């Protein structure tokens, strides 16, 4: 077990409801620095919702969510919890990169502009500095020659790689991936997984929602199986995938393989 300071994400009894339906029914887990955690589970089990709670795209109803010992969305002062304002939440999100299933690149900007946008607007980097770094990030995801293409001129796999570069431009210490390859044609999945594998090798802390069991087994340090808003079981990918203890895990794994 690593020490507390090396814990990047800590969730304690996280609950979340949409109206009457409770989507997260008490999630407890923790992610250490450099860990790649794969989150798997059937559709509708609350994986995306949990990921979105970590960077406050959704607000939680009960429990605590910490990133680097900072309570997300709230501040503990004089024994009470105060909700953070827009600017403070935005500050917390700077260190957390997110990659979406549908890429969500800004269509009115070129690949380069997409990557430069947040460093210039949020980190107040100079244009020259931001551009230099954006170019090196695009090179890192293998798209140095597509810097001036608009998203509509790129394939799905290329768009997702730009999206990863865009998130990395904020120098995050945690990356969240929400089914990054689910919207891709099968032949384009590999190029995105390769980039993610490279990130993992460089020691990035990552939470990856995925149906790619090969990736989970090969790159993941831990695997969490969620169903119906709870963590059903977790462990090393080899253990959970090799000898699942729960019937729900077994039946799910039977379907995706």
């Amino acid at each position, binding site marked *: 077990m690593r020490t507390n300071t090396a814990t990047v994400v800590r969730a304690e009894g996280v609950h979340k409801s949409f109206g009457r339906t409770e989507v997260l029914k008490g999630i407890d887990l923790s992610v250490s620095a450099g860990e790649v955690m794969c989150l798997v589970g059937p559709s509708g089990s609350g994986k995306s919702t949990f990921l979105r709670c970590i960077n406050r795209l959704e607000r939680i109803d009960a429990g605590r969510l910490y990133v680097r010992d900072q309570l997300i969305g709230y501040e503990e002062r004089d024994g009470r919890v105060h909700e953070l304002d827009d600017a403070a939440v935005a500050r917390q999100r*700077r260190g957390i*990169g997110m990659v979406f299933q549908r890429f969500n690149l800004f269509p009115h900007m070129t690949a380069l502009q997409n990557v430069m946008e947040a460093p210039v*607007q949020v980190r107040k980097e100079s244009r020259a500095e931001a551009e230099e770094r954006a170019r090196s990030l695009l090179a890192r995801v293998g798209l140095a020659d597509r810097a001036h293409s608009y998203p509509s001129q790129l394939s799905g796999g290329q768009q997702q790689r730009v999206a990863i570069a865009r998130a990395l431009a904020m120098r995050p210490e945690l990356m969240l991936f929400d089914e990054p390859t689910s919207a891709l044609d099968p032949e384009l999945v590999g190029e995105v997984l390769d980039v993610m594998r490279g990130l993992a090798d460089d020691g990035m802390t990552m939470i990856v929602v995925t149906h790619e069991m090969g990736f989970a087994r090969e790159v993941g340090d831990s695997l969490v199986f969620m169903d119906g808003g709870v963590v059903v079981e977790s462990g090393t990918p080899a253990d959970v995938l090799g000898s699942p203890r729960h019937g729900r895990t077994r039946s799910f794994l039977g379907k995706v393989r």
Partner: protein
Amino acid sequence: MSESTLRTTGVTKTAAVSREIEAVPVRRPGRWAASAVMAFLLVFLLQGWAANPRMQWATVGDHLFAPVVLEGLGTTLWLTAASMAIGILGGVVLAVLRMSDNPLLTRLSWLYIWVFRGTPLLVQLLFWYFLAAVVPHVGLGVPWGPTFVEFDTNRLVTQTSAALLGLGLHEAAYMAEIVRSGITSVDDGQSEASHALGMTRRQTLRRIVLPQALRIIIPPTGNQVISMLKTTSLVSVIAVPELLTSIQAIYSRNFQQIPLLTVACAWYLLAVSVLSVGQYYLERRYGRGSSRDLPPTPLQRVRGSLATRRPAPLEDR
């Protein structure tokens, strides 16, 4: 292309060659007949109008570039620009308020739109013009307390400012709906991606959402500008010296109503046509990134049609 080339060049060139099919087009006799009838009617009417001695074409010519008319046209143009500026700014503010989390602001915005869209513009113009009758003084100071400066409403709300208020505030209500539909048309994933990068709500609106909403907002706004240009003629009721007012002033002296109204129509038509061309180019610019190929400009189209007269070499594509 002859059949022999098709056979000799084989499969690879078939696609290229088949684009140049020279088929005999389907005959459409009905279409020809209708066109002929329409053309005849048009010529007949135009000839009657043009040759009518009472049309006084000389009067039209005399007044087309008369200084008063040109000044009136100038007023019409800047009134259009200024009212639209007020309308667009007001519309953005109203739309943002309407979509805010604050229920009070949402309701205020709704109330504004309800009032300003629910009453005729002509009535609103007269309302602003005669405002001085109910509120003779406007002052700056502490409510129910001392007043620091005071203005005579009659002097503050001149004909021109009544026109600007009337046209601009009314336009803001319509622009608010246009801006709102533009903002809601932008996929939620865009704001989410922007927020996830650490951009604040304001940055997200300014850098990500509004630029994309513009594509949806610009075409109807272009129509609003064109419509505003024509609507400014309404302010002739409060005697703002714009194009129609100037024209009316002339024909009230020489009683040449139709020739002078023809002058007005000529200028309105010209201005609207120029604006339509501008709108076309704006739409093109803001369509950027949304499609792989931009539509050709009218200029490119002319060049293109000249080019296609000459048979293009096959390797060209």
